[in-house]
């Protein structure tokens, strides 16, 4: 029982000094003078503001990537005791003393440093020599672009770290699969693969490409497991289930976890609230929650409400009306109803209040007990400040309208006409009689088209001019997200459409800003062509109170006062997650051209650079500029790999085996992960329409660099036939590596920005005309 005491307690440690040394120099290269420059460098200005939001726990929305990356950076700020008080507005601004620059930059720098020993491990796990593995690590170590990127508060180095971690742990998992499946070690690496993939995706969406690559390789390996007839069916099933759980289910859960933490941290309302739905906003502290807290839940006849459009494009806005009327005649000669304007207004305003009225009664107050409005009820909407009714006009309720328009409109002028503006595009040639394709509704039919969307009906607040246009102000309530047909209209939660009873047009935000006469507010129309579901036709009640005042004066006072009464509501995590994720994917970023933007074709041969920072007085500067020798040779290695691979493949098909089977498999796996990693991280950029920068290429480059020593070792082992050739080749490789080190050293001042160079030195460094190196003019 105490047998273990009979043996001495032994600890055997195997230390791979290569690894230790690589880690040490990696740390040295990335952490040296990390807090310099003490100024905002390039995209730090972008990430910094989100760190401040995290520190202050204010909700924000960033369409560029999932929250994990931002959270990691914020963790650095948290550890350094950052209070979030810094104005991130200008590249080059000096950091104030409360900003812990060193700890903010620490995590990316550590990730960059640890990528170096990981490269060593990956090449070793792929089955190549220690020499090749060390070579790969050293190349990553001296790659200037990677050093620059990891020394700043940016996310690429963290992304690369997790990409490499995913590949490394998958390789470790694969290698333990051969010996002891289902051992703790096997499980550890399998789970780590899934977690690392999910972290990579959580930092930037592009991480998904590496994840798909790993999944693809895993699927091929799983297919081999299925084909392994020495395993029992149950065993195969266990293998498949374990992989599915660790590589599919687990990453999804971890990804959700990021959002969970994100939403847990950001609990206060902030500048991006407006983009989110009312329900989401109500779940944040302050902001809308303060306003809506305690509103009555069920909308009743007599309720006073503000109606927000669910689509929120181009900006979130509320249904609005005001005293001004539509102009009699528009610029293009079409006439209007000259009724009171109804618009959508992106700011809170007392004119956004509407009263839900029962068409059968005159009162504008809520009964006691309140009579809730249900799906399918017919209502009138009374504008609170002017007591006019929401109305849309069509002279003939049965609708004798011009049939010509819809096909033209829906089919969107199929091809050429979208390009070539029709002759009427020549200014000033608008058709005064209103019979051009843009205004098909002739006035004689009383059918009034909306000011800017002539295929739809105008929506107005009805003024009784005592002419032959009777009011048509009945709207049927259609609750879109109802559970049953008798559902009650609920504040915030219900998404409703208003269907005009006479014409079955639907109240819709067209999103077009009106001209000056409409104060540039957004146009609201009655859509009669498209009756399917679209978010721009859906509205929800945001602010709500039961109206109590009979008199208009009192009512106006009531409209000005904030809402009261108490009920609280909560949105489930999944609902908040799905809304946030959807908004993040659809939020439109400014894809304007940038001075340093580039195209994917510029990247392979490093035809571009990015100036990150310039010292305010001297000409010390930091550039994202790679080691040209490494970039060129890595691209060349990829090409050589591809050619050799095709050559071997064709010869194997003709039963000529140049490589032994295990060597061949090793060669294929190295290609699948390294060349494949390069391809999946590079090629998709050709299809992307957003603004691209050189740093987008760095993940691909890392994989390409891993391939370089693999190809070199292969050439030395298999293509050099004699000892002499091999020695010659080795000498060449040494010479090449020395030149790479030399180049790296020459570019060092631009990488660290620690030394001010003279204009002539800077000019000498401008090896390509397309490089943009900043030279001060004195």
């Amino acid at each position, binding site marked *: 029982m105490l047998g273990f005491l009979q043996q001495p307690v032994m600890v055997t440690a195997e230390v791979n000094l290569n690894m230790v040394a690589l880690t040490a120099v990696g740390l040295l290269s990335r952490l040296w003078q990390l807090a310099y420059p003490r100024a905002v460098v390039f995209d730090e200005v972008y990430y910094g503001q989100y760190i401040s939001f995290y520190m202050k726990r204010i909700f924000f929305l960033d369409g560029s990537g999932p929250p994990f990356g931002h959270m990691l950076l914020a963790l650095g700020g948290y550890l350094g005791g950052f209070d979030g008080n810094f104005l991130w507005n200008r590249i080059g601004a000096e950091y104030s003393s409360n900003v812990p620059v060193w700890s903010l930059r620490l995590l990316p720098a550590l990730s960059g440093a640890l990528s170096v020993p990981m490269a060593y491990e990956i090449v070793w796990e792929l089955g190549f020599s220690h020499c090749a593995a060390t070579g790969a690590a050293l190349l990553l170590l001296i790659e200037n672009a990677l050093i620059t990127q990891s020394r700043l508060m940016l996310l690429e180095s963290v992304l690369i770290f997790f990409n490499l971690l995913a590949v490394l742990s998958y390789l470790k998992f694969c290698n333990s699969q051969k010996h002891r499946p289902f051992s703790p070690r096997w499980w550890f690496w399998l789970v780590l693969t899934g977690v690392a993939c999910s972290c990579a995706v959580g930092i930037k969406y592009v991480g998904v490409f590496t994840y798909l690559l790993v999944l693809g390789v895993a699927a091929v390996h799983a297919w081999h497991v299925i084909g392994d*007839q020495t395993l029992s069916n149950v065993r195969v099933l266990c293998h498949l289930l374990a992989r599915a759980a660790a590589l599919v289910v687990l990453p999804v859960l971890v990804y959700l976890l990021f959002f969970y933490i994100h939403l847990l941290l950001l609990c206060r309302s902030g500048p991006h609230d407006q983009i989110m739905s009312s329900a989401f906003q109500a779940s944040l502290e302050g902001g809308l929650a303060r306003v809506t807290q305690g509103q009555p839940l069920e909308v009743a006849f007599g309720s006073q409400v503000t109606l927000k459009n669910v689509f929120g494009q181009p900006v979130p806005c509320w249904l609005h009306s005001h005293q001004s009327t539509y102009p009699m005649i528009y610029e293009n000669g079409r006439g209007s109803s000259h009724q009171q304007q109804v618009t959508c207004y992106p700011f809170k305003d007392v004119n956004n209040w509407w009263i839900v009225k029962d068409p059968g009664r005159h009162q504008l107050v809520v009964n006691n007990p309140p009579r809730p409005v249900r799906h399918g009820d017919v209502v009138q909407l009374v504008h609170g400040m002017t007591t006019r009714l929401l109305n849309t006009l069509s002279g003939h309720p049965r609708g004798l309208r011009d*049939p010509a328009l819809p096909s033209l409109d829906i089919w969107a002028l*199929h091809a050429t006409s979208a*390009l070539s*503006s029709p002759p009427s595009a*020549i200014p000033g040639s608008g058709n005064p009689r209103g019979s051009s394709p843009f205004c098909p509704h002739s006035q004689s039919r009383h059918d009034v088209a909306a000011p800017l969307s002539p295929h739809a009906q105008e929506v107005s607040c009805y003024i009784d001019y005592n002419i032959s246009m009777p009011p048509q102000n009945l709207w049927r309530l259609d609750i879109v997200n109802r559970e049953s047909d008798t559902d009650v209209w609920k504040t915030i939660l219900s998404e409703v459409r208003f269907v005009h009873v006479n014409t079955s047009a639907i109240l819709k935000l067209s999103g077009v800003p009106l001209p000056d006469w409409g104060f540039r507010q957004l146009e609201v129309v009655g859509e009669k062509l498209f009756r*399917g579901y679209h978010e721009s036709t859906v509205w929800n009640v945001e602010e709500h109170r039961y109206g109590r005042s009979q008199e208009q004066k009192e009512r106006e006072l009531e409209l000005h006062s904030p809402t009261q009464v108490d009920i609280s509501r909560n949105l489930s995590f999944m609902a908040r997650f799905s809304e946030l994720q959807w908004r993040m994917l659809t939020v439109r970023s400014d894809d304007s051209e940038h001075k340093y933007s580039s195209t994917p074709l510029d990247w392979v041969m490093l035809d571009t650079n990015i100036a990150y920072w310039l010292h305010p007085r001297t000409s010390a500067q930091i550039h994202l500029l790679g080691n040209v020798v490494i970039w060129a040779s890595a691209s060349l290695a990829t090409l050589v790999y591809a050619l050799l691979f095709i050559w071997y493949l064709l010869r194997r098909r003709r039963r000529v085996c140049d490589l032994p089977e295990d060597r061949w498999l090793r060669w294929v796996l190295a290609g699948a992960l390294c060349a494949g990693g390069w391809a999946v991280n590079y090629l998709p950029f050709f299809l992307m329409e957003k603004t691209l920068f050189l740093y987008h290429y760095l993940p691909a480059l890392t994989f390409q660099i891993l391939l370089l020593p693999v190809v070199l070792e292969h050439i030395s082992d298999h293509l050099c036939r004699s000892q002499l050739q091999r020695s010659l080749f080795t000498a060449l490789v040494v010479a090449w590596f020395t030149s790479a080190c030399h180049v790296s050293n020459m570019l060092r001042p631009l990488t660290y920005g620690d030394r001010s160079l003279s204009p002539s030195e800077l000019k000498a460094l401008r090896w390509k005309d397309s490089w943009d190196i900043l030279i001060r003019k004195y």
Partner: protein
Amino acid sequence: MCGTTVCRVLSHVLLDNSLGDGLADTILVCFMEMRKEVQRGWDETHFGKMGSYYINRTFFFDVHPPLGKMLIGLAGYLSGYDGTFLFQKPGDNYEHHSYMGMRGFCAFLGSMLIPLAYLTVLELSRSLSAALLTAALLTFDTGCLTLSQYILLDPILMFFIMAAMLSMVKYNSCANRPFSAPWWFWLSLTGVNLAGALGVKFVGLFIILQVGWNTLSDLWHLFGDLSLSMVTLGKHLTARILCLIVLPLALYIATYAVHFMVLNKSGPGDGFFSSAFQARLSGNNLHNASIPEHLAYGSVITVKNLRMAIGYLHSHRHFYPEGVGARQQQVTTYLHKDYNNLWIIKKHNSNSDPLDPSLPVEFVRHGDIIRLEHKETSRNLHSHYHEAPLTRKHYQVTGYGINGSGDSNDFWRIEVINRKFGNRIKVLRSRIRLIHLITGCVLGSSGKVLPKWGWEQMEVTCTPYLKETLSSIWNVEDHINPKLPNISLEVLQPSFPEIMLESHMVMIRGNNGLKPKDNEFTSKPWHWPINFQGLRFSGANDTDFRVYLLGNPVVWWLNLLSIALYVLSASVFAVAVQRGAHLPVEVEGLSQVLLRGGGQLLFGWMMHYFPFFLMGRVLYFHHYFPAMLFSSMLTGLLWDTLLRLCAWSLASYPLARCVHVLGILSLLLGTAYSFYLFHPLAYGMVGPLAQDPRSPMAGLRWLESWDF
């Protein structure tokens, strides 16, 4: 009805005897009510018009390659259509114009889809019932029917796609007799059809990729066969290169040659093309033009951007609206020729009239500082430190000043690319840049379309980034100067490859330019397989004659179910094979049909569907129809195979046969009945909308998004 008889005869020739008249009659479905509708529906406005252009030989521009429209034009020509109908607005009556030829041609190709699908599935599955089921699915699909009734490119495109698929499948079955006559026949026919598909729309590329993939795997298979010598392999490779690359390419180029040969008159498409291109067209002012060669002060010119499909520098008497930079006159680019494109070159420092005969002619030279005055409004081309309306990082360009007197922001330095300072500037040939003197920015067009206030013309900006891109390079096209002698510019005519290249660039740019506008309801690819929403062909209100493009929901949802079922059953078989299970001979055969034949069809469906997810251009419901053909074929093959498997698992033979026959029959009858229900969509309906109980379609609006 001569069309119907021709159709009947042809279908008898083409179809197997086993089919009998049944299927032949179904083809007539397409023709049945075609004559009734004399109104033009929907997109006929475009393709009908383009047919007329061929007949009238006027040059036009379209984003699609020319073959489809040429065929329509030919059909119209042969049937006596004279090209005089205007095709202005959907819904106009044809009156006396002979449109039946063009419609009949499209309808005929549309009905040919059914026999083609029938033969393809027959070849892949060797089962008559599978082929019949497929044919029935396509016959009874209202969507295919509607689409083939009108003058559109889609029936032509689908015909070529299906014909290519059929010939590829046929040639695959000839693989055991390489270099025999049928082998050559089907191989070259594949090539011909590929050229046809690509020549109608660029979507034809997908079937080319499919055939390419099939050929590669075929070659790979042959390459692994050690009994074949390298010489034989070389022959195989050469045959494929000849028939699948050289032949289609030659035919494709030939269609363009015919296109350019036929269209030799100036027409509405001129402005899309470069100045050199226009010189080919008779009637264009550059055709055999003689204009002054060198630019001089006082010349009236038009300036054209060198990037394709940007157009001419343009201004008009309208201001930028409030909030968009300074409230000065708009400057845009415009694709059409217009008097507002005219500008006068003036010296920056004197306002004297250079056309005064007493003054000597003074040429503009590279590096000169000039002022460009808009001829109609007498305002100067102007730029300043205000952000441009759309491209915020650039500066705004406006028209400024009164009667030509402005300020120093009107001064531009004119530079010729790759020339020495002091050289004269040549009309048409010199590539020039205009550099704003004070801000140092370059005049360019961003190619973005301005909103309504800018009449949807394109934005002109002054870009501070001096990267040399085509969008900031211009050339002078028209040039009027009474003091200079005119010189003939015959030499300019571009060669045929240059024309080909240019027209492709313009088409590709045109295609990319078809972006959905903000807040426009657009069709999304995920809508399509679930038949989420149709397209109105004509009529919207309850009193109109309405035709609505919507797939037969029974067929489409069956297709959708079948894809899922196929993936499931195919993976079960694949795993079983991989696990080394021994299947009985019958099941083995069926699994081969499922994996090989079904695999090809599934691949075809994916190739014709998934790429649309990556496209940025405007998408329409009808883009799904080629994919839908593949998915219907898959459905036919799958259900037949599954029913056979089901029958096989039942022990006794008569029962088994009964199950199979009953299954097929119920599917056939089900689709036929659903067609009976939904046929008014295609043949047109009058009466109230579907939500009204008196409507002919009452109760059939199964999805709320269908708006018929």
